């Protein structure tokens, strides 16, 4: 069982960010396999996520466009996930069929 699978809750694909960085192995697995996905219907575009991103990704814009944070700079550091006042950002395993135009080496 991989670290990612072990951290998975019953709702397949969703990871509990509090446990994510417990070990380097888990971190490595996350960096390789997960991205931040939004639940756009819960978003009010308040900007807290973008404000806290250490590499200045406009996370809010991704949410408005209802797309995962595909930005190659994303560290999967979980700052946006943790800070979102409405809890609408989550880590999700990157699906096998990647979004068009996304280079797996960039994740």
């Amino acid at each position, binding site marked *: 069982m991989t670290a990612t699978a072990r951290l998975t809750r*019953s709702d397949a694909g969703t990871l509990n960010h509090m446990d994510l960085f417990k070990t380097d192995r888990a971190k490595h697995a996350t960096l390789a396999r997960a991205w931040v996905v939004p*639940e756009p219907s819960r978003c009010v575009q*308040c*900007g*807290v996520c973008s*404000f806290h991103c250490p590499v200045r990704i406009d996370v809010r814009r991704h949410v408005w466009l209802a797309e995962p944070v595909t930005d190659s700079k994303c560290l999967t550091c979980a700052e946006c996930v943790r800070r979102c006042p*409405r*809890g609408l950002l989550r880590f999700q395993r990157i699906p096998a069929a990647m979004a068009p135009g996304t280079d797996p080496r960039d994740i």
Partner: protein
Amino acid sequence: MASRHVLIGSGPASMSAAETIRSLDSEAEITVVGAERYGYYSRPGLAYYLAKEVPEGRLFPFAPEDFSRLGLVWINERAVKVDPAGHAVTLASGRVLPYDRLLLATGAWAIPLDVPGAELDGVTKLDDMHDARDLIRRSRRAKSAVVVGGGITALEITEGLCSRRLDVHYFMRKDRYWGNVLSESESRIVEEGLARRGVRIHHFTELRRILGADGQVTGVETGEGARIPCDLVAVAIGVLPQKDLAEQAGLVCARGVLVDQYLGSSDPDIFAAGDLAEVSDPVTGQGTVEVLWNSAVVKGRVAGRNMALGQGQAYVPVAPLNVTRLAGSRITIMGTVGSGGDSDVQGIVRGDSETWRRLGSGPVVEAQVGDAHVRLALGDSTIIGAVVMGDQSLSFPLQELIGGGVDIGAIRTDLMQPAAPVGRLIDDLWMGWKGYRA
């Protein structure tokens, strides 16, 4: 000739309409008319600004280049008249804008308090950026505040002022907070959270008048004659859809502007979206007003599409959902969860849907699931509403089960047993449903 679209209002309904129109018609002339001097920003984000979680400059979702990409003409002025026969809007300056299709998205504004002293300096509200700035400016000098009203806004103000180290008194007319949406235990969780933050809650307390000296607030007097000194009085007793323009134009209005399923008003070339639009429930026919960001975005998209292409896409109401924080506890409210009135508010408040309060006498399941307090309102074959407080893991499955109208026949009886394993039942049903869909 390019079609001319005029959108009145500068909130999310207007912005999503503008984006949709532009995506369908690259030639269209799109003009946004808004009296809001700060333009387009996150109104719900003002609560986080007040609580020092985000700086003011971050509340603006669109950068200048986003507006240029949309090719909008933005007029920062109040529209004072709509002439449906002449297809023209008159602005405060006297300028006249002709239109082919018009969107009314003027939002909803706070109902003022009707007590002696309400005109004093220091009586505040939280409608817009101007109010948030005003509250922040005043909180630097003020020591104490009295908050009256209910729903989300009253608590946003209460918690914002607490985080700015004011002594806050919160008045409630009855025995508990938001009694027509929350259950007794949910109200209690919120009130305990407020008390832990040092808020002084006054149950069964009405504000009779506001006291002042030299035009400034100095205190309040309660219905029973008690006097509480304070520097600020914040009011959040409800909001009213701003339908003056629509009424003056002769459009059919009730609580908001009545629209059909295409979000068209009684005039074929005028649409309404956002807090202003009163939509009919397709099943019951009941008119419904919602003051929710996401509803405004979705309605704006549908209205924009129908403005650009002619009436073709129906607005399908979804189970209204809002997620917020009340006294430090995260809470998601979805579907239909309460009933009746709340004596602390008149009609609807911000972050609120009338649908929430249409609960009949069906069974309700209330349970503690790990770190979450969960309440489910059950229909004959579906979950019709839910409130999740604390840990939000279950709120995502519930959002899909309620939104998808998923049949709960297999677990309905089990859910109603004493000490039912509610979390597992919901998770299993959701997993099964997702598997079935996949």
